């Protein structure tokens, strides 16, 4: 499996943020997108997710398993927002995304265990602290069956321990043949990942 971008350009509000990007990420590899605020990191991720249309260039996923028709279907996007309903319990939220996205490697209980939130599945999502919320979103990645992870500042709000734990989870995903594209300001501790620095802007 290989995610390939050729001559990719992205725009926002009629203004070109970046152009002529070339990169290729294979199974087991991670790409770190860095750059100052407003340089277009989130824009790039949303283009890969198919939520925005690129201004120019090409983007494709080669050799994906048959179950995933397009790039968007193979990708799981973890944005700034957690995509969870505060009034539903953590279990209910995860259960919904699991059945909607297709069952992934882990069960809900296992995934919560992996982000050290084993016992709070019954609490309403709205009762959690910021970092706990983020960790539940990470658990969503684990229960869904999507090989390409698109992560937008995934560690915002996490404490030190959870950060290391999350690095371990990313490593696990890579070893099992996944692809990660992450936008970040902080080093995520993944050795051997390539970095894509977007130009300076406002």
């Amino acid at each position: 499996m290989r995610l390939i971008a050729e001559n990719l350009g992205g725009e926002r509000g009629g203004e070109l943020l970046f152009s002529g990007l070339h990169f290729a990420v294979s199974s087991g590899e991670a790409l770190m997108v860095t750059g100052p605020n407003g340089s277009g990191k989130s824009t790039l991720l949303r283009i890969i997710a198919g939520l925005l249309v690129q201004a120019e260039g090409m983007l494709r996923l080669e050799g994906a398993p048959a179950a995933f028709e397009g790039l968007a279907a193979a990708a799981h996007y973890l944005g700034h927002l957690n995509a969870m309903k505060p009034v539903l319990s953590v279990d209910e939220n995860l259960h919904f995304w699991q059945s909607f996205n297709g069952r992934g490697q882990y069960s809900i209980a296992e995934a919560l265990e992996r982000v050290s939130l084993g016992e709070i599945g019954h609490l309403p999502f709205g009762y959690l602290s910021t970092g706990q919320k983020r960790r539940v979103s990470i658990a969503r990645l684990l229960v869904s069956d999507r090989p390409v992870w698109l992560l937008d500042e995934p560690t915002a709000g996490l404490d030190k321990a959870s950060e290391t734990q999350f690095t371990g989870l990313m490593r696990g995903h890579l070893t099992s043949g996944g692809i990660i594209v992450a936008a970040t300001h902080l080093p995520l501790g993944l050795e051997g990942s390539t970095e894509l620095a977007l130009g300076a802007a406002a």
Partner: protein
Amino acid sequence: MMSDAVSKTGRWIDLANPTRFLSLAGGILPWLGGLTVLVLAIGFWMSMNAPDDYQQGSTVKIMFIHVPFAWLSMMCYTIMSIAALGTLVWRHPLADVSAKAAAPIGAVFTALALITGSLWGKPMWGTWWVWDARLTSVFVLFLMYLGIITLTRAMDDPAKSAKATAILTLVGFINIPIIKFSVDWWNTLHQPASVLRMGGSTLDPSYLKPLLVMAIGFTLLFFTLHLMAMRNEIWRRRVTAMRRVAARSADRGTVS
């Protein structure tokens, strides 16, 4: 200034400790329940033996339950409003329990007032329902009970729903005088007050006596049920609190 409020709350918790309330209720309830059954039985016997009215025939017997239900529907809301004041002003911990437990009981009594009233209206007025001021305002009272019940059920955190419900109850109290005086304000089909009014009752004693006994009996019934429902509510809150503690401590691997 915040800390004042907190210490005040603490004092009130000492004064009206739910545990003390539980033991008190446990002692009172059997006696209260027995008395209720006794009075209701006497009232029932008296109302069965009351003479038929020359105008209304045997339907006058409906009065012996209709009127107590109608009174209790209003009394229950009044109690809830006082409890709401207790929640808001004195922050009494039992006030919220009392209001929450009273709402379903009040709704049932209101529904019974509506049902028995309708069953009386068909032979008397020739229709089950008219949109007359008193009937409609009792109907609105019923709606408000249901609204308050749904609101208490919609929020799962009792501390949060307590104040919200209290405020709503108080604002809705406006409806009670409207019910009471609607018959005087708009001329309607419904009977004007004849028992509880200035200048004494106009009702014949042969009806007044069974009515009063039934009214006392149903009032006792209300208080019995209210005490029981309050006790249930306290237990329910304990169960939730204990479940939460259990979950949290299991989380940390330190089962207490």
